[in-house]
């Protein structure tokens, strides 16, 4: 049967500039087949390689879009009109961190094509994405638990240049979760051990090592060369320092943190969303939130959280997908719950807000901000060395020993004859202490015990108080060398 094909003016160039053509056909498909037979240009312009209509072509039959009818199989009757008209849709491309120029400057050889084959198969990555990965430079700050999967997956994925920073050496306690380091790496710099791991996984990766502590003086110089920074550190000073340097230098920051069974990940990029300071304007009081070294962590958690960080890094490089900018992902492995919180940009943020007050890293006092400095106005806390304490215990001097550690810490190493009072209860329970007797406060590292002494002082306790310097860590070989019963 004969139907009338009406063609939108924008598509007429492909139909000999005709606005309407009469064609035979009983379905839309048949009419379009006739049309493209007669006008091969239209076939190329309006249909893709798969012979399907390109997305911009809408087909209407008697005023209804065929998508709402039976599609190309829609039946036609004599004198029906079929209308071809475009719809225009578009959008901004996802900008990865690697410019087109840099991407084009790298090539992949046959071995690389083999190695990264499974990336090349993904439409979202492909050759373009893999070249971006090769051109990319990522700095991993911290080579502990979170740094482990970051190092492994970024190296395996083919991130061309990986910088690794850590001032520490591998210790036996690290090996429970930091699987890039092996037993024979104990006492080696973590950077050296991590470099070996990267080279073993993927010798094509260029590795830059920085066996130093990140400081106000060196941070900008170090991160300047990198496209993305992954924060895998475990302390607030580093986090603020890294955040501020990233904001000032305009780098995206992939943040991760953990506590026992819970982890959190976010992407901070002040140019496109909030920064770390927007979410955490100030650190918690000194000694309140313990690091993993103090509180413990399940060995698999850094593997999970660090892998999510690595995944965010890859997406930032490749461009596309949904990134965690403006959001924070929280995961609790023990109860198996996960959720995403939105993180808002703080207009009053001192570094990325409307009226910033931090312009230079060197001019901001991170030690003071994070409460790491001894307060000059505060009465200094008197300390006692483990050796002196051991002597006094040995001589049988009357002493009160107060253990402010958490129950799980005490279960590893008990301090004999100590009174157990958590910091939160000290002020309330001060009458349990004898103000005429010397009182020694102990914790794991000798930091929370200072907080305990200051808390009691503020609460009006007048008796003599001493802090066990270096805490149980320092005391274990001196006071308890003969005890043997560590656990």
């Amino acid at each position, binding site marked *: 049967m004969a139907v009338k094909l009406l063609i*939108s003016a*924008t598509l007429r160039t492909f139909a000999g500039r005709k606005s309407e053509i009469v064609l035979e056909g009983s379905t839309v498909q048949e009419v379009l087949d006739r049309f493209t037979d007669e006008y091969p240009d239209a076939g190329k312009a309006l249909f893709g390689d798969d012979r399907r209509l390109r997305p911009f072509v809408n087909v209407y039959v008697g005023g209804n879009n065929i998508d709402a009818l039976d599609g190309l199989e829609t039946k036609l009757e004599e004198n029906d009109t079929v209308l071809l008209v475009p*719809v*225009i849709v*578009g*959008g901004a*491309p996802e*900008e990865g961190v690697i410019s087109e120029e840099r991407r084009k400057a790298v090539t992949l050889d046959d071995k690389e094509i083999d190695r990264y084959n499974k990336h090349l198969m993904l439409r979202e990555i492909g050759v373009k994405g893999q070249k971006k990965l090769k051109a990319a430079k990522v700095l991993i700050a911290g080579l502990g638990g979170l740094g482990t999967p970051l190092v492994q997956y970024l190296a395996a994925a083919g991130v061309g240049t990986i910088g690794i920073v850590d001032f520490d050496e591998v210790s036996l306690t690290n090996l429970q979760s930091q699987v890039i380091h092996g037993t024979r790496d104990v006492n080696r710099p973590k950077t050296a051990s991590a470099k070996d791991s990267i080279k073993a996984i993927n010798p094509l990766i260029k590795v830059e090592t920085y066996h130093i502590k990140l400081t106000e003086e060196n941070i900008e110089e170090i991160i300047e060369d990198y496209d993305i920074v992954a924060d895998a550190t475990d302390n607030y000073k580093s986090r603020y320092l890294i955040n501020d340097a990233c904001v000032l230098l305009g780098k995206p920051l992939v943040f991760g943190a953990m506590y026992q069974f819970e982890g959190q990940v976010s992407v901070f990029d002040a140019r496109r969303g909030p920064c770390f300071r927007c979410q955490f304007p100030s650190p918690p009081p000194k000694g309140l939130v313990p690091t993993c070294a103090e509180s413990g962590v399940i060995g698999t958690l850094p593997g999970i959280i660090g892998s999510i960080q690595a995944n965010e890094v890859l997406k930032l490089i490749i461009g596309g997908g949904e990134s965690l900018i403006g959001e924070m992902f929280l995961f609790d492995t023990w109860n198996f719950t996960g959720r995403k919180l939105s993180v808002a940009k703080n207009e009053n943020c001192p570094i990325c807000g409307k009226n910033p007050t931090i312009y230079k890293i060197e001019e901001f006092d991170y030690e003071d901000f994070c409460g790491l400095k001894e307060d000059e106005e505060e009465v200094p806390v008197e300390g006692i060395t483990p050796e002196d304490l051991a002597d006094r215990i040995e001589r049988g001097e009357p002493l009160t020993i107060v253990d402010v550690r958490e129950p799980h810490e005490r279960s590893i190493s008990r301090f004999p004859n100590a009174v157990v009072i958590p910091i939160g209860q000290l002020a309330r329970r001060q009458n349990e202490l004898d103000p005429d007797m010397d009182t020694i406060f102990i914790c794991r590292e000798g930091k929370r015990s200072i907080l305990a002494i200051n808390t009691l002082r503020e609460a009006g306790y007048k008796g003599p108080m001493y802090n066990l310097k270096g805490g149980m860590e320092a005391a274990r070989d001196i006071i308890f060398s003969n005890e043997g019963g560590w656990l």
Partner: protein
Amino acid sequence: MIIFEKRFIEQLYREAQEQYPNECCGILLGLAAADGERIVLQVRPAANMSPEGEKQKHFRIPSEMILEAERSAALNGYEIIGFYHSHPDCEAVPSELDADYAIEGLSYPIISVRKGKVKEVHSWEMTSKEDDRYFRKECIEIRDRK
């Protein structure tokens, strides 16, 4: 090549800034010469019909609007010579989606707006070679009104 009178290109800039952080979009009416030169004689802004929440990254000009523009253009002896849109905080380079929906032989000016200010504009023409369709950057000429 696409030719704009100064006031028309300025209209595009203004709209891109006003719609920021959303994408602006619209239809260009005018005349097309056989050698591929297109001259803009009217700018028809279109409401961005993308769903709420997606307008910062996407735009949509539905078929009805295009048909209406065609009819009004025909009354003046004009035709649709292109579609413009803005890229908020993103370069003036077409995305894959832009390419999927582009019609051969028309101009697609893209205005890059960074932090609410127009940064640059590039115009793209969809062309094809054998079976390959691709965007080619085209020259923009801006003329003072005569």
